[in-house]
């Protein structure tokens, strides 16, 4: 077990260090890189406790997709390096906002952990205590049967968020020519060439 605990401390030290760097580093890009490092080490911790499915999904979803978009946004916005330290800046609103959010999260964690600790039959009522099948099978067994409603609800919430985001940013630009593959493929020599009578001083509109 020595090797196990060495690896555990290795990953958790990296996780804590990189999450500290996320909030203290001056340049936003570095923050995002440290966030990615944080995700990866937390994913490794997940794998170490035997939740290999969750760890891999964390890597795929958060590191592979979400953090890429983070990085995109930060690079595109071209946020300059923070000139003044967040602790010195007089008009800085980061600290109060961050404090409120973190206190809220702490309270939520307390409620969750406390409730978990004092609910005695939570282990006995669980259907997941089948130690000889793998983590992924266990999830698969309950996800689409016992928890189908929550699963579908979560999916619908995500779908709504996606539709909302598309709706907010969608705009129909005018004068954009679209390529119609069906028209291109099905046109025949007869319709492709057209003879037009050009009237003088009026011209003719060819491209529609």
């Amino acid at each position: 077990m020595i090797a196990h605990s060495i690896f555990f401390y290795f990953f958790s030290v990296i996780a804590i260090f990189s999450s500290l760097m996320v909030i203290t580093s001056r340049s936003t890009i570095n923050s995002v890189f440290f966030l990615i490092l944080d995700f990866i080490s937390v994913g490794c911790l997940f794998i170490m406790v035997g939740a290999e499915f969750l760890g891999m999904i964390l890597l795929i979803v958060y590191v592979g997709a979400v953090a890429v978009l983070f990085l995109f946004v930060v690079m595109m916005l071209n946020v300059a390096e923070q000139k003044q330290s967040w602790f010195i800046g007089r008009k800085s609103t980061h600290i109060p906002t961050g404090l409120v959010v973190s206190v809220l999260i702490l309270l939520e964690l307390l409620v969750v952990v406390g409730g978990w600790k004092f609910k005695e039959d939570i282990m006995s009522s669980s259907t997941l205590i089948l130690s000889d099948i793998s983590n992924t099978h266990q999830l698969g067994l309950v996800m689409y049967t016992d928890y189908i409603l929550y699963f579908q609800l979560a999916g619908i919430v995500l779908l709504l968020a996606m539709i909302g985001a598309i709706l907010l940013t969608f705009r129909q630009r005018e004068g954009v020519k679209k390529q119609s593959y069906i028209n291109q493929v099905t046109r025949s020599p007869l319709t492709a060439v057209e003879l037009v009578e050009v009237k003088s001083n009026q011209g003719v509109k060819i491209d529609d």
Partner: protein
Amino acid sequence: MMEYLQILGQEVYKIIFLLIPILVSVAMVVWLDRRVWGLVQKRKGPNVVGPFGLFQTLADALKYIFKEIIIPASANKVVFILAPIVTMTLALIAWAVIPMSEDLVLADINVGVLYLFAVSSLGVYGIIMGGWASNSKYPFLGAIRSAAQMVSYEVSIGIIIINVLLCVGSLNLNDIVLAQKELWYVIPLFPMFVIFFISALAETNRPPFDLPEAEAELVAGYQTEYSGMMYAMFWLGEYANILLMCAMGSILFLGGWLPIIDVYPLNVIPAPVWMIIKILFLFFLFALIKAIVPRYRYDQLMRLGWKIFLPFSLVYLVLTASFLFYFDKLPKVNI
């Protein structure tokens, strides 16, 4: 303590004996790629250094090693140096789970497919980091193109993998291979194989989807500012990734290390040889496509990914699931 050291030593030994063949085969595969490309265009391709020009890539590598590494003055140095390292590391660590035969695999983990998928989705970071850290417009444009392209095509690759997993009932790569003992999945899932192949081309930035490094528009994309060994590392990573995609395709669809049919002269050929033959076959297709297909336009690329591949593979997923359900062929989980 001695025990740990012994285990560690054994693992390091195994890792070295996995990595050296991969690096050598990457070099050989670059030669194969250029050779096929040349033959399609009625040229000879590299044929001077060594027999049939086999040592051409080694000569190139030597040249890269002795070249000076130039780091642009305005570049973010740490990220600039980190980018090729990330690319190459990610391309190499994925090989840990690829089974070359039933027991010839470094890490036979339960979630092998997810691991492969995760590592290949991380591959985009090397490119973004390289493009951004160069602090120049062509690399940045190339990096952005590449990131959008890789994220888009990952979605359809994910759904294709789900198709295969539905038939297998396990995320372990060896289980996937063994499930194809009767019938390779390329036959019932042929449309998925085609889409997987095309998505793999896009995922590895190969022609006809090599827009991130489209030389006519972007000089060399994210690699523009790189030189010497760092450029070579990008290259190695890229080709190792291509080989990885070929390995993934042969495991998911072509029966991995299984022989074509289980009859006498074929089943005495050792399993790794079959695996290598299949990888090389897929790579040959990659190389052919590089030579014969013109480059896509960017909006066509996005349209193909989101409007054609994604809906089609979703529909096929529903079809596969309903077929397995109604004919009672869903894989049984033994608990």
